[in-house]
């Protein structure tokens, strides 16, 4: 297993101009790249882990599947954008099958869910390796080159990534707050029995919410593919970090998700300049544990778990 290769830490771009302002802006943008990805991956996890109380250890594989979708489309001669459109669909398909075949049968057995989803995660990893072969898969970004910002020169694709991630998050907020499906989700989260009482099909709502989370994680995988090293085992780092996001941020609100992502992503990006990525990861883990000890319900809200 090549663990360091697929760390989200590799989403860092090296600074081009060595003055202080440049350093600051570059660090900020690097952090923002990582935070964007974490928010997208964490969103699905916040739905399944935080709200449905399902510990899905195959969540990282949605990211992997999304990245492989982009690679596959590109290798067949398609454009990056076509691949990026395929990524959430691939994530959704895998998520939907997983929910239907495994997770819905195990809602009342948390440890079994952990074991079964981990099994699925291994099957998906090895399945991808057997299908696509060993070694990292190349994915080229749609735009090479850089953009000259006021204080620094920054790779253009990363700015696009940040933009798409922000737009997606905005879309999710609108979906949850404005549509009737969003209302269903909020009702189910507030009180499952009552939701059933007023005629909401909670099973269906869970399934759709889960699939939706998988699709967003797939999109994140597609977005990060040109920056990361695309491997069947790349998912586990996103899994661990996304769980930190949810644990630190607390569940139940978009605000918590953002706070958790900023905490984990920001800390990782800053530490990555000072020390080795694995030590940075260890410190982030420790910080997350300490944060949980001090604020058991998350940094951002008082919702009980």
């Amino acid at each position, binding site marked *: *297993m090549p663990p360091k290769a697929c760390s989200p830490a590799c989403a860092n771009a090296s600074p081009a101009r060595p003055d202080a302002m440049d350093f600051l802006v570059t660090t900020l943008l690097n952090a923002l790249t990582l935070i964007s990805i974490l928010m997208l991956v964490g969103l699905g996890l916040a739905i399944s882990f935080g709200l449905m109380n399902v510990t899905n250890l195959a969540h990282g594989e949605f990211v992997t599947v999304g990245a492989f979708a982009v690679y596959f489309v590109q290798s067949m001669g398609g454009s990056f954008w076509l691949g990026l459109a395929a990524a959430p669909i691939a994530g959704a398909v895998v998520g939907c099958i997983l929910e239907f075949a495994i997770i819905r049968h195990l809602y009342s057995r948390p440890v079994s869910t952990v074991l079964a989803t981990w099994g699925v995660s*291994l099957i998906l990893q*090895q399945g991808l*390796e057997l299908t696509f072969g060993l070694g990292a898969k190349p994915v080229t970004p749609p735009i090479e080159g850089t953009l000259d910002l006021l204080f620094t020169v920054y790779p253009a694709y990363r700015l696009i990534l940040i933009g798409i991630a922000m737009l997606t998050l905005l879309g999710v907020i609108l979906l949850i707050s404005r549509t009737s499906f969003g209302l269903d989700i909020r009702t189910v989260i507030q009180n499952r029995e009552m939701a059933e009482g007023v005629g909401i099909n909670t099973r269906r709502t869970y399934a759709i919410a889960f699939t939706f989370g998988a699709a967003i994680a797939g999109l994140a995988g597609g977005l990060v593919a040109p920056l990361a090293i695309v491997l069947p085992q790349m998912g586990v780092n996103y899994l*661990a970090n996304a769980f930190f996001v949810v644990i630190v941020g607390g569940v139940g609100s978009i605000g918590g998700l953002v706070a958790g992502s900023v905490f984990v992503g920001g800390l990782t990006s800053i530490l990555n300049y000072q020390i080795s990525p694995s030590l940075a990861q260890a410190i982030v883990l420790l910080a997350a544990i300490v944060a*949980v000890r001090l604020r058991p319900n998350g940094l951002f809200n008082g919702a009980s778990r």
Partner: protein
Amino acid sequence: MIARDRNWLLIFAVCVALAIVYPLFADGYQLTVIRDALIFGLFAASLDFFWGRTGILCFGHAAFFGIGGYIMALVTLNDAIPFASLLGIMGAVAGAAFVAAIIGYFLFFGGIRGSYFTIVTLAMGVICQQAAVSWSSVTGGDSGLIGIPPIEFDLGGLHVDLSQDLPSYIFVSAIVAVAVLALWSISRGRWGTVLTAIQDNEVRAAALGHNAPLRLLVTFVLSAAIAGLAGALYVCMAGLVAPDLSGLLLSTEVIVWVAVGGRGTLLGPVLGAIFIQRAQQTISSFNPSLWPLLLGCVFVIIVFVLPDGILSIYARLKSLFKGRRRAQ
């Protein structure tokens, strides 16, 4: 209750007897194979001691195995340290226990249980493996450290030298037997009963005056210490240490050994470790990437078909048979 204890001791005695007569029939290579499998069996028992009694799953137990292994390797490879084997084992046990104590303190006293605990320990395992790879000046990076000498020490006039197959087999078997027996007597006595109570209803146990977080912490630390011991033994027998030993795949495999062998039985996981490793060697000889794939399938099968492990087949058949008889 009493009958169950008697059955356990009976099976334990049979296993010990088999381990004693095995060298009469096996050659040196076969002895080393079983010896190494027994070390992993000890590792599995250490996880079962925690998971089986508390119901909380640690998903990064290989981290403690790896920490023990690396400490043992670093101590015995350093010529300046006297009594390297004994000090190395002590350091391995203490190191693993120390890491478990820090992580466990924050989690248990922070009210973290269940899935949250599983995930944090999963992350811990990932990070340990990364650290082993990237801290190459100390750990030797991807290739690890080689040339670790076999265990050798003097204790009260007794000279122990484990460079030969048979002595090392006997030494390991004895340690595993003693450790499993000790863990079993702890977990069936007062300590284990209170842990079961905490697993059933932690608030109630606390309202009766039990310090649940402390008890969970001590159990976790003890479990990690045994895992560290297993890691230390393993690297001396294998002669090398590598990042895989603290990796996620090993953490995963040890869960399978426990789940297949039967959670909460302590002896089942040891047997599970031995048999599954034999199966792994056979399967991996066809295609190395087939094994993780199969492992994944085993997880899913356990959950849906055999939630209580292989040993439960016997109980199920028995109840099926009884049911049939009653029906007739």
